[in-house]
């Protein structure tokens, strides 16, 4: 079952196939739960978020469009949105973006060979993030990962709204430029 593509597993999950559902959960549960933990910061709430994310994936498997991204980015987007909603209800202040990113650039565990492409994508992203100025990297983590608006980023970082917007926009554009540049170089 581990050799089955992510897309095929998701399709199987959508049809309610128990074997596909089990394999899908096993393949992605560490990433989904890890992202939920990163955002909500508490195991019980993170488990609720992760469980709901898999339920959403099952319910809306038919809405997944492979032309718009990979299964893992789709699933993590669902997880992120659920986690942000959970945090907004329970906890107003986000975690420290340095604590999230600083520990993760290069310290990733080895993944199964079947996920080599994902590992490469993640490594490329980590490398591109590491090359950004620290203030842009922090703004991207606060907004893109933890779901803060530009105004909230400004308040969190003690900078004007316009500066927060500039950091997010510039960081995002540089990140994309770096990733596109690497893709073309391959």
């Amino acid at each position: 079952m581990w050799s089955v593509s992510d897309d095929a597993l998701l399709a199987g999950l959508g049809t309610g196939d128990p074997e596909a559902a089990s394999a899908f959960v096993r393949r992605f549960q560490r990433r989904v739960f890890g992202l939920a933990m990163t955002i909500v910061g508490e195991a019980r709430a993170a488990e609720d978020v992760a469980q709901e994310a898999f339920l959403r994936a099952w319910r809306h498997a038919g809405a997944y469009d492979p032309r718009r991204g990979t299964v893992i980015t789709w699933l993590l987007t669902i997880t992120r949105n659920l986690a942000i909603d959970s945090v907004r209800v329970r906890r107003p202040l986000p975690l420290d973006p340095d604590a999230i990113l600083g520990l993760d650039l290069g310290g990733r565990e080895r993944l199964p060979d079947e996920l080599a492409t994902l590992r490469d994508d993640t490594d490329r992203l980590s490398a591109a993030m590491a090359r950004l100025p620290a203030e842009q990297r922090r703004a991207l983590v606060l907004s893109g990962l933890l779901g803060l608006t530009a105004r909230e980023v400004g308040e969190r970082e003690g900078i004007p709204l316009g500066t927060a917007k500039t950091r997010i926009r510039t960081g995002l554009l540089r990140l994309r430029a770096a990733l596109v540049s690497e893709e073309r170089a391959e």
Partner: protein
Amino acid sequence: MLTCAEVRDLAPELALGVLGGAERAETLAHVDDCVQCRSLVGELTDAGELLPLLSREAEPPSGFEDRVLAAVGGGRKRGRLRWLAVVAATAAAAAIVSVATVRVVDRGRDDDRAAAVSPVSEVNSAPMVGAGGANVGWAFASDGRPSAVGISVGYVLPPGSYTIKAISATGATVRLGTMQVTDGYGVWTGTTKASDDGLAVISLVDAAGREVCQASLI
């Protein structure tokens, strides 16, 4: 109507799914009509959607997989019944108000449901889309006047009362009523005589005036 410069200012937050309320609606309206801004938002979204990959993996608690699989098995019946209940209620209301049989046309799915005989009153359905493009529920509306409307939300929306706003195909805005959300779930059905030309958009607005999700029925 926002200018391109204003949309470029808001595009990163739109792409990251953190833009809310009126700004989000206005930006989306501009992006729909502007190829350049749509392209920019698309590029920013492509990059932003990768950011969650940066989070560390973590081992979920013991038994997590079993609990998820049990929820998937148990959720199937619950979710389908909830969905079907709202469809049925909307269809029933449509049948009453139009004295017609009903055909349900589900946008986003391939299959038509509930076969019908002429004359036919269609019940259009579409996902309610919230922040970040996540599906938060479904909206249903029959054609004709009055139009039957049903909304089902099964998502982690904060509990509370939400105003149901609709925009007709010609752009007229009407308030349909209020929906109570409890434990992330809410259901509302009713009818409106607001429009001869059908409803184009149905949205939920929270107490602070922020549009939290919307469905495009046309």
